[in-house]
């Protein structure tokens, strides 16, 4: 059944009375000319109508809490409910960002502890928690690299190197900071072409942005050599933490030679994705970048915690949000980290990797082609349907849509761009083996369906609230808000 738009069930004059503060409407001293002339089109519904509408809408979503969600590069692992409950304790929700430090010691203690935990797991010298998502963490990282070079009078370093397999945010971020982007090719085994890198570096090199393991789901084996080349050339190394779950507790970016890292706490530290956010993109830095961290940071003096701001970090790249970024997300990450603790954090990468390699082995055994069959999978791996596309016209999209009917969210498809008809599959450590086995069975069944009649797949999905949607039409005939028929 379709769910009507909430505007379609609105009735003029209706409202959820208990939500009105009770007093009437007046304009106080607002001058006539500045007053609103029309009534905004907000829903006019009862509380029950709103509750029912949005509860029903929620049921039209896949989510971790309801479905296996092996979306590569997104680390869709279980979001412990306790993280939500505890981050939403009334006192935390009620704390104004400008509350005095005397009334903020509980919150600041959590933030300070989280900084320390993140320093330890990444092997970095300092952490700032303010970036509100991975892309903003990247921004902060590149901005710090720029600030570092400038502070040394080395203003010519404006080029950022990016492997061709990098996330789109990497070049987009470099561009936002006015850097030029130079792509470095990847070899057939998924490693950066070190010779090409060597040829690319120079006095213009600000740094390199690297995801390790890469978006191909394999670990960059020559990372030490790469670090040496970039550092020798005077550049810095940026670690894109999107794939941090693959090495958490196993390898530390600081130990690999990185100068700056962002962490997607909504991936690796299991804060919820919320249907598109909020995230948190904390950044960690090596000693030489400490002065440039975005503010505010939390410091400790004896038993008291306090904010560090421009007065403490005069060389800071500044503020990326009005206050402490997505503080509520940071609280969730903190609770998660404390529940895992040292032992738990040491095991994350191990079991994420076990699950990925198991799933890869089972799929390979079932006849699927791995993009990098000679490599260990990291926390994720790539299946290419090149062969099935040629032989059966079964595309990655077809498989993705049909998987929904089997009760599984689709893997990431068509990314990384360099692998044809690819499925980037990330099971995460929180899924059990039986679920992985069922997923293999579903992919095998879908392939069998394609062998019988691929048109079955082309029509998928069949069991969702809608059949396959027309994206082209959406872009051509833009319909971006409800407007009642005149």
């Amino acid at each position: 059944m379709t769910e009507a738009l909430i505007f379609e069930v609105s009735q003029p004059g209706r409202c959820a009375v208990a939500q009105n503060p009770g007093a009437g409407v007046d304009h106080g001293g607002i001058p006539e000319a500045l007053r609103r002339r029309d009534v905004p089109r907000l829903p006019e519904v009862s509380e029950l109508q709103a509750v029912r509408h949005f509860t029903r809408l929620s049921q039209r979503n896949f989510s971790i809490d309801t479905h296996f969600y092996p979306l590569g590069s997104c680390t869709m692992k279980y979001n412990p409910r306790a993280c939500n409950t505890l981050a939403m304790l009334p006192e935390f929700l009620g704390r104004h960002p400008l509350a005095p430090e005397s009334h903020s010691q509980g919150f600041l203690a959590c933030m300070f502890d989280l900084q320390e935990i993140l320093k330890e797991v990444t092997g970095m010298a300092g952490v700032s928690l303010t970036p509100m998502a991975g892309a903003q963490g990247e921004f902060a990282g590149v901005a710090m690299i720029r600030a570092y070079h400038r502070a040394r009078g080395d203003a010519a370093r404006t080029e950022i190197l990016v492997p061709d397999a990098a996330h789109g945010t990497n070049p987009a971020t470099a561009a936002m900071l006015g850097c030029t982007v130079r792509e470095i090719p990847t070899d057939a085994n998924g490693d950066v072409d070190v010779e090409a890198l060597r040829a690319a570096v120079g006095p213009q090199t600000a740094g390199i942005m690297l995801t390790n393991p890469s978006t191909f789901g394999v670990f960059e084996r020559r990372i030490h050599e790469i670090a040496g080349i970039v550092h020798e050339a005077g550049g810095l190394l940026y670690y894109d933490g999107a794939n941090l779950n693959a090495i958490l507790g196993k390898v530390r970016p600081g130990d690999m030679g990185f100068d700056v890292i962002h962490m997607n706490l909504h991936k690796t530290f299991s804060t919820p994705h919320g249907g598109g956010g909020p995230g948190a993109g904390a950044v960690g830095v090596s000693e030489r970048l400490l002065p440039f961290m975005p503010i505010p940071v939390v410091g400790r003096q004896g038993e008291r915690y306090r904010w560090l701001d421009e007065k403490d970090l005069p060389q800071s790249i500044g503020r990326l949000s009005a206050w402490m970024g997505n503080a509520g997300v940071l609280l969730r990450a903190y609770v998660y980290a404390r529940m895992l603790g040292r032992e738990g954090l040491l095991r994350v990468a191990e079991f994420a990797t076990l699950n990925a390699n198991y799933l890869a082995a089972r799929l390979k055994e079932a006849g699927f082609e791995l993009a990098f069959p000679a490599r260990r999978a990291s926390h994720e791996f790539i299946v290419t349907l090149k062969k099935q596309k040629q032989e059966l016209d079964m595309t990655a999209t077809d498989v993705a849509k049909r998987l929904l009917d089997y009760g599984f969210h689709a893997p990431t498809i068509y990314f990384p761009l360099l692998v044809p008809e690819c499925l980037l599959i990330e099971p995460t450590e929180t899924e059990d083996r039986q679920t992985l086995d069922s997923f293999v069975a579903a992919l095998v069944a879908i392939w069998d369906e394609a062998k019988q009649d691929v048109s079955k797949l082309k029509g998928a999905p069949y069991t969702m609230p809608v059949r396959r949607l027309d994206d082209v039409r959406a872009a051509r005939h833009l319909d971006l808000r409800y407007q009642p028929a005149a």
Partner: protein
Amino acid sequence: MPFIPHTEADVQQMLAAIGAPSIEALFDEIPEALRGASLEKIPSGLSEMAVSRLMRERARQDGGALNFIGAGAYEHHIPAAVWEIATRGEFYSAYTPYQAEASQGTLQLLYEYQTMICSLTGMEVSNASMYDGASALGEALLMALRVNKQNASGRVLMPQAVNPLYREVVAATTPAQGVQPIAVAYDPASGQTALDALKAHGGSAPTAVVIQQPNFFGVLEDVDAITDWAHAQNALLVAVVNPVSLALLKAPGQWGAKGADIVCGDGQPLGAPLSSGGPYFGFLTSRMAHVREMPGRIIGRTVDLEGKTGYTLTLQAREQHIRRAKAKSNICTNQGLLVTAATIHMSLLGAQGLAQVASSCLRNTAQLTQQLTAIAGVTRVFSAPGFHEVVLRLNRPVAGVLAALAEADIFGGYDLSERYPELGNALLVCATETKTEGDLARYAQALTAVLQQQA
């Protein structure tokens, strides 16, 4: 192992299927020297029971005060239904709706959000959120630079009456792409950004003029005149607004003859708890003509292969995952769940409820102003009408007064003297609809006592 479901038997069978002797062997491509972090400084794991105890104790440390601080983050009542629904697993633990058919809940909700926020701001198109109000302003200025081919200087007239933290974020994030904010003074008597002050910079071919309504002092700007003037300069008018105020204040789309060009602000007052400053969400709306220059995600309505209505991400060619270095922004993850909450919040309040909230805020702040300025040594600073914040001047340094009030568990407001030293002992005070008469009286009594004590 918290949250890891593997039994010992599972592990052995899985390793056998892989053909690896141990889990450690799965990491054999990683140089050995790099392996084996010890994480010594991290304490052992806590059970949920233990961590609950810890967090409850920490939360208790911070609670209990009566808050009169606004300054960009506002304490409003949030209906219980809002977060009970927004934290349902299906919203809370879903990803960005890349697989539209399995994400119709989130997608339809976002389409409804776009409708609501367009209507509230009087604009034609909205994206599905930015990080917060400050970053939304930054993105709005970058967008203005892309849109305004006529005046591409990058110079942006930025009144000092715009939230100083927003201005700091703009300064940190936009100059690398060519934005040059130019400070514009406010009138020390009215607290408004005077047209004359803007005109002083009129010759510089500004790309955009920013105006915040109400401004950081809670003062109402003469938005019609400023909008018309900006357009006369071929500058875009970028509006920064508080969405709750729009229940009573003229929609930016109707400012002046042609309306604002880009509207942004912080959605926090629409259902986001104060929560130490985040997560909130930024909103950004504009005209249909500029939609292809907008940053962030946009949801469109379309049909499925049977002709049934559905919703999907659209215009993705603007975004980083497609356009990479040429994307309109690097934003990827946004603040989806906050938009979910805001959409439910707006549905529960409706235009009527929002207008009542705004009116209550107005009344409470007016009443508080009256009570506080009746105290010896407290005066009102600005003459222009305002919305729900007010600047007061004390007869002694603000910091000490606020500290004394905090000891009585009252947060008395935001100390303006650091960022606006020219205002003297100035304090920005806010009383939203959450404040009762008793609360206002309690503040007035406490302030009286503090000023007497410190006198």
